């Protein structure tokens, strides 16, 4: 069923929902920007930019609060049903997930200062590509939300496998590199955490997509429409 073209009889309800969609777009955009900023700061050892990302996280947290309050208020005052109810529940869950994305980006930014510039660690060359793939997932997830696009939501979940593959590849390469270059264990560990953070951000993009899918269709996304489970532990030497 397509989204309703009709307005609510109570116009204030529509304006609540429009405000909410705007806030979700903003928090999503800020999370995406934070990932991008953290990775740029890492690539250029740009401490000022890294600090900006860390400080910018407070705004994401504040947006999460604002979204939660608006959702609760709307449920209490408007008694939403059907699509409206599902959208509000999805917005509530999405705001929590995006707040986590922001935290991961902040965590990446905090590590920038801890990695000495100039150390050439070969496996780290894959990180920018992984970051691009992750950022694209986040972007697509919020596009899916904005457009009420269940197909795009499904595509995001399938696409998450790319990010997982990057992670597994970087993980193995970094471990091997650290064994042969013990002097890089410090930096290598930070890079490992950064890769892990990106992988988690990708997972959260799929969480957002699952909520979009639920809001649009009223169904939970079928297991088989999700990517592989990247969280399953793999042997370190696999």
């Amino acid at each position, binding site marked *: 069923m397509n989204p*309703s073209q009709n307005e609510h009889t109570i116009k204030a309800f529509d304006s609540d929902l429009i405000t909410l969609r705007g806030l979700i777009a903003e928090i999503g955009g800020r999370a995406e920007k934070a990932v991008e900023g953290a990775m740029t700061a890492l690539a250029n050892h740009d401490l000022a930019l890294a600090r900006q990302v860390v400080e910018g996280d407070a705004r994401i947290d504040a947006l999460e609060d604002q979204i939660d309050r608006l959702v609760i208020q709307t449920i209490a005052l*408007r008694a939403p*049903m059907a699509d409206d109810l599902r959208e509000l529940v999805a917005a509530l869950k999405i705001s929590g997930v995006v707040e986590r994305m922001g935290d991961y980006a902040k965590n990446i930014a905090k590590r920038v200062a801890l990695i000495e510039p100039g150390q050439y660690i070969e496996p780290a060359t894959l990180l920018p590509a992984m970051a691009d793939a992750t950022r694209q997932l986040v972007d697509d997830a919020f596009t899916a939300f904005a457009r009420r696009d269940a197909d795009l939501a499904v595509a995001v979940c399938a696409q998450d496998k790319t990010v997982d593959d990057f992670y597994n590849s970087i993980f193995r390469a970094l471990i091997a590199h650290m064994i042969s270059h013990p002097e890089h264990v410090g930096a290598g560990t930070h890079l490992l955490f950064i890769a892990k953070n990106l992988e988690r951000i990708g997972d959260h993009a799929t969480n957002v997509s699952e909520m979009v899918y639920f809001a649009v269709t*009223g*169904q939970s996304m079928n297991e088989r429409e999700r990517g592989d489970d990247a969280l399953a532990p793999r042997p370190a030497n696999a």
Partner: protein
Amino acid sequence: MLDKMAPTGTSHKMSARDVRVFYGDKEAIKGVSIDIDMDNVVAFIGPSGCGKSTFLRAFNRMNDTIPSARVQGDITLDGENIYSNAMDVVQLRARVGMVFQKPNPFPKSIYDNVAYGPRIHGLAPNKTDLDQIVENSLIRAGLWNEVKDRLSESGTALSGGQQQRLCIARAIAVDPEVILMDEPCSALDPIATAKIEELIHALRGRYAIVIVTHNMQQAARVSQKTAFFHLGTIVEYGDTSNIFTNPREERTRDYITGRYG
């Protein structure tokens, strides 16, 4: 009793098949079919004029009292066509009781309001039996504790919510199988409404209950099945939990989300 089963061979308490109700030339209900079972409370929702009350009244032939009204199609109670000539309408309305929007107690004592039905139907051979029926009915209607010491006072002296529960006790007193409720809470405050809703929960299973309501939250709260009526037809009939979270039809969705044109 196989010969009394509905043509479909089902064991629904009541079934409507291709029911049409006319007011003069105007077709208010346009071929509606539905099954009512003992274990569910069924809610009829829909905008004003959609036909839900008209359809409800077809279940105990209340439309007979409107001269211009005509009913076509079949409605069965335990497989028996209630519109057949063999059907005793007084008996039918005892088996299929009704509670109206505005509480309408008789201008008699509380006791007599409840005893009225059992008396005319000869259900109580003696005063002790009648006392017992009155007490049980008032207990089931959740009113006993509030009125047991003043049964001889007038029913019309009660509060609106109490009057409505008195009307439910009156309907229960003749031991019906089905209770039809036509917006039973629309004249009541939220507390009295909550008491009626709680009562509906308590009565579920003992009687088949059909409730017409304008209040969608009420339909969501009290019913297990919901039928959405629009322009004399049922647009969607299904589990209440699905209708209110994930309706299949756009018209249902637009109505319950408050987008109805």
